[in-house]
C-alpha cells in the first residue's frame, strides 16, 4: 500500500476535504490493472529495455482541492507509472485549493524521499520515486492548458445535482468570510443539472486537451447516469475512436452516491 499524502494543513472551511471519492481515485490509480495500463501506455526504457523511452507524461488534475490525489501521483510516480520522469500540474478554480495543493505535494514528495532513503545503508543514493510537480494554477477546467499536451487527466468533479451553479468569480468588492467560503466549497461539489454541468464541459473539451496517447480518469456518481455518459463519450469523433470503461467502483455504499471511475481514451 502506498501511503496517502497528509492534508492536515489544508483549510477545510474553504477547500474540499478528502473523502470517499478522493480515496476511490487513489485506490483505482494504484490498482495493478491501472498501473499496468499506464506503464504500457507511457513506456520508458527502464520498463522495456529494448526501445527508447516515450516522452515524459504530463499529468493534469482538474480541481485538485486539497491536492491529495495529485500529491499521491507525484510522490509515487515511479510505482504508479513505472518511471520517475512524470510531470504533474493542477488547475483549480479556488485559489486556496491551489495553495493547499502545492503544500500537499511538497510534503508528500519530502516524506517519500525521507522514507526511501532513511535508515538504509545507501543513504547517499537517491531512492526517491517522485515525479516533478510543475505547479498549481487558478483557472476554469483546462482552458489555459496548451491543446493536445495532456497525457493523463484526472477529474473529481462537482458531481452533486443542484438547482444552480455557484459563480466562478468572487463578487466585485466581495468580502472574505462565511459567504465566500460557502461559495468556494459549493464550487467543489455543486454540479447543476444531473450533477453533470461542469463535467459535460470537461468532456466536450477532452478531444482538444488530451494528446493522442492521452487518457482521462473521471469520477461519476450514480445520479450522473454513468452508463449514459459512457455511451455519449463512445459516440464522439469517428466510430470506435473513443473508449470509456469503468475501472473502479466504490461498492461499499449502496446509497445514491455510489461512485465509479471511468477511464476515457482513444484506441
Amino acid at each position, binding site marked *: 500500500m502506498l501511503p496517502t499524502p497528509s492534508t492536515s494543513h489544508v483549510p477545510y472551511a474553504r477547500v474540499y476535504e478528502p473523502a470517499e471519492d478522493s480515496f476511490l481515485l487513489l485506490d483505482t490509480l494504484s490498482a495493478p490493472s491501472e498501473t499496468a495500463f499506464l506503464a504500457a501506455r507511457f513506456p*520508458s526504457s527502464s520498463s522495456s529495455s529494448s526501445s*527508447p*523511452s*516515450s*516522452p*515524459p507524461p*504530463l499529468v493534469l488534475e482538474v480541481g485538485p482541492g486539497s491536492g491529495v490525489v495529485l500529491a499521491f501521483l507525484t510522490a509515487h510516480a515511479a510505482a504508479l507509472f513505472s518511471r*520517475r*520522469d512524470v*510531470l504533474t*500540474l493542477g*488547475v483549480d*478554480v479556488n*485559489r486556496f485549493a*491551489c*495553495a493547499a495543493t*502545492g503544500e500537499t505535494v511538497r510534503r508528500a514528495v519530502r516524506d517519500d524521499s525521507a522514507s526511501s532513503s532513511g535508515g538504509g545503508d545507501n543513504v547517499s543514493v*537517491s531512492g526517491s520515486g517522485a515525479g*516533478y*510537480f*510543475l*505547479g*498549481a*494554477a*487558478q*483557472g*476554469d477546467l483546462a*482552458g*489555459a*492548458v*496548451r*491543446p493536445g*499536451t495532456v497525457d493523463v487527466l484526472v477529474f473529481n468533479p462537482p458531481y452533486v445535482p443542484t438547482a444552480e451553479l455557484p459563480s*466562478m*468569480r468572487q463578487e466585485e468588492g466581495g468580502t472574505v468570510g462565511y459567504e465566500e467560503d460557502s461559495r468556494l466549497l459549493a464550487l467543489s461539489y455543486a454540479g447543476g443539472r444531473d450533477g453533470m454541468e461542469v463535467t459535460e464541459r470537461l468532456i466536450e473539451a477532452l478531444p482538444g486537451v488530451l494528446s493522442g496517447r492521452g487518457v482521462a480518469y473521471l469520477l461519476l456518481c450514480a445520479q450522473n447516469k454513468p452508463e449514459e455518459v459512457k455511451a455519449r463519450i463512445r459516440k464522439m469523433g469517428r466510430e470506435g475512436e473513443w473508449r470509456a470503461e469503468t475501472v473502479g467502483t466504490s461498492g461499499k455504499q449502496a446509497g445514491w452516491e455510489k461512485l465509479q471511475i471511468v477511464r476515457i481514451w482513444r484506441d
Partner: protein
Amino acid sequence: MKVLTLNFLTCAVKTCKSSSDSFPLHPKDAELVSDDVELNPQLLVNLLPRIDWKALRTTSTELGFPELPEQPPTAEELEADEKMLKDLHTLLVETQMNEGKLVCGHCGHEYAVREGIANFLLPSHLV
C-alpha cells in the same frame, strides 16, 4: 510554478486559441526563485521531443537566461553535453516564477502570478 510549465500553458481566451501569438505567454516583471533539485539527465533527454523548443527559447531569453541554440540538441548531443544538461536543468526544473504577470501576445491580457500561483480565471467580459 516551474518555468517548464510555460511550455504547456496558453491564453485562456477562446478566440486566442487559433493564433500562434497566444503561445508562449510572455513573462513580465517576473520574480524568479530557485529550488535545489537533483539533476536527472534522463528526464531532460526524454523531455526533448515534447518541448516546443522555439517557445522555450523565447521564454528563456525573456527571463534573462543565456540564449539557447536555434535548434534543439539531439538526445545523443544532450547526453554528452554536461553544460547544456546543467543549463536546461536550472532553467526548466529548478527555476520557478513566483511573482509577476504572464501576457498574451495576441489579446494582450495579463494573467497575474502571485506566490507562485498564476490566475487564469477570466473577467466575465472575456469569457
